[in-house]
């Protein structure tokens, strides 16, 4: 209870920033397409968390409404993205993101 009382909204923002940084770093340094995809999801959720936090801080329900939309879009995006990645990995089980460089100029 004490602990709970001490939880400041800014903590959520720090957590969200940390999650976003982890996701961005992972996206930049990992080459497994599945892991990179998970990192993207992590960044997305970090953003969603800031929305909820600010909604609470500013007492504006709009932020939470946006979250609902983001969830829907994310679900659709996961279906498409995972479908593509699974299809790629099924053809070439050890493919990395760097192998998929057909659009090189």
């Amino acid at each position, binding site marked *: 209870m004490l602990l709970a009382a001490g939880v400041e909204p800014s903590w959520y923002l720090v957590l969200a920033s940390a999650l976003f940084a982890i996701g*961005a770093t992972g*996206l*930049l*340094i990992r*080459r497994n397409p599945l892991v*990179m995809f998970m990192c993207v999801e992590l960044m997305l959720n970090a953003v969603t968390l800031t929305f909820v936090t600010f909604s609470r801080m500013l007492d504006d329900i709009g932020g939470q409404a946006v979250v609902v939309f983001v969830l829907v879009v994310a679900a659709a995006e996961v279906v498409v993205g995972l479908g593509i990645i699974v299809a790629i990995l099924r053809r070439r089980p050890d493919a990395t*993101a*760097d192998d*998929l*460089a*057909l*659009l*090189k*100029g």
Partner: protein
Amino acid sequence: MELLDLVWLIPALPLAGFLLLVLGGRLLGEPGAGWLATLMMAGSFGATVAVFAGLLDRPEEERVFGQTLFEWMPIGGWDIDFGFYVDPLSIAMCLFITGVGTLIHLYSVGYMHGDVNFSKFFLYLNLFAFSMLMLVLGDNLLLTFLGWEGVGACSYFLISFWFTDPEKASAGKKAFVTNRIGDWGFMVAIFACLAALGSISYDEILTGAGSLSGTTATLIAGCLFVGAIGKSAQFPLYVWLPDAMAGPTPVSALIHAATMVTSGIYLLTRVNPIIAEADSWIQPTIAWVGAGTALFAATIAVSQKDIKKVLAYSTVSQLGYMFLAVGVGAYVPAVFHMITHAFFKALLFLGSGSVIHGMHEEQDMDRMGGLRKYMPITAATFIVGWLAIAGVPPFSGFFSKDEILLYAWAENPALWVVGLVTALLTAFYMSRQVFLVFFGDERFTVGDHHDDHADGEDTALGTDGSEAEALEQPDTAHAPQHDEVHVLHAAPHESPWTMTLPLVALAGLALVGGAIQLPFASDLHFLEDWLHPVLGENEAHIDVATGTKVGLAVVAVLAGLTGIAVAYAIYLRKVRRPIEPAILAEGWRYDRGISAFMGGPGRAGFEAASTFDRTVVDGAVNGVASLVRRSGGGLRGLQSGFVRNYALGIAGGAVLLLAYFLAQVTL
């Protein structure tokens, strides 16, 4: 249904024939393809007669009308329609194009017998007929230009029909290229019309001509005249027509005598209101170019050895007559001479084709002679054509030529003198041709052994002739024993009925063709009355006393008879050696002069233009292209294809944006 609605059939039937022959020509083969093409032309002639009858039914002022089939090119505010302009002039043209065309198609069935490309020949002929009919029926300048180019292309195809012979192939190219120079003038005239009047339909040009400024009208008339010079083979662009004789003879008759080469006259007659508005120097220029060409070509024809070359130069000369007529405002005599010329010149060409056919592809008149015994029908019909072109009454050529000379006299006696000398020369060289080909001694023999009878009889005259021939015929020197007696592998023969029937029909027309415009009384001026709606007040009106008219006619006839008499004395009685200077045989070296110029000083100019085009014009275009390509090549390294590179770019960009906004806030 009104008869006039049939007008679309006139060009549609030859087009249908062309399409059918494209699809099934090889299937039909010989002679089916020829009969199909002839049938289509005959149908087209029938349609023309029907439209003609329909026009006759109408009162005079309603005889000019347009029939629009569809909108051809809507360009902004300009609408160019695809339609027909039906008036007495276009239908008069169609009548003789389809009429003479049908006869020549029929003739070709016999002439092209045994050719490997039999059906292809008729395919081209039908396409030509279609283009020619579009040229005269089109209701705007562009449609006429379409036909104009169409006949030019067909002329090219047909001149080089036997394209395996490089000489014939290049003759076709020469015709095409020379015509392009004239076409340039035609195109400029179309643009000028569009700019000045906002329309190129004849309806609006002819009614709007009065509103044109003198300069614009001069530009349009002058440029159309340049086009006409090219197509109708006038000086200085006549060079392609004599070479066009490389094509099969029916082609020479149809395209290079009767129809296509007269389209320049048609065009100038069509736009007569514009010529009327143009500056006053245009008409004398046309007249003098015509008169000069007539005389110039007639002098060349005097020395030609090739039976078709004589007729070719004669055609150039007769076309010059027609331009002379247009130049003095005598449009009716021009059209009159165009029609009679179509009859007798087609007849002469077809007759020469029959001779060439009967002599087994021999074209040199020095190796002919006495052929009237072998080919009586050809000889008789050729003689009719000869008398017609020589201006002997009552043959058709007398009436039309006399009419032109009369108008020339009224305009400027100097033009009349040139015309008269040309008439004399025409009578002379045509008589020379007739005497060399059909009369006199046989300068050939059949089989390997000499014909003793012919040889023994001709010894005295033969020595006389051999000197002249040795001078002008170095190519026979390789066979001295046959210096004047050419060996044929089979006797000359008369041609089949498909060839003689058109000859007889054309001979009949050449005989009575003058009846469409008789000078004796004003109610016998059928052609003048018929063309009145087209020409209105632009036709020259002359005021010459009847006595003068008769006197001029008598002088013209005497000139013609003098020409015939001189030719008779020289070529049949051989009272003296023929004077045939080499410079005339080479056409005043005009052709060679052009070649020398184009190969020498002209060449440098072309090279300079070519260099300018390559370096400056192409350089600008290529420079822009390579600039774009090089900068694109530099930028394409950015597209590495690695996802994390792109992600880094996005992340870096986001950081920079963040830093920027933070700096905005804190500062």
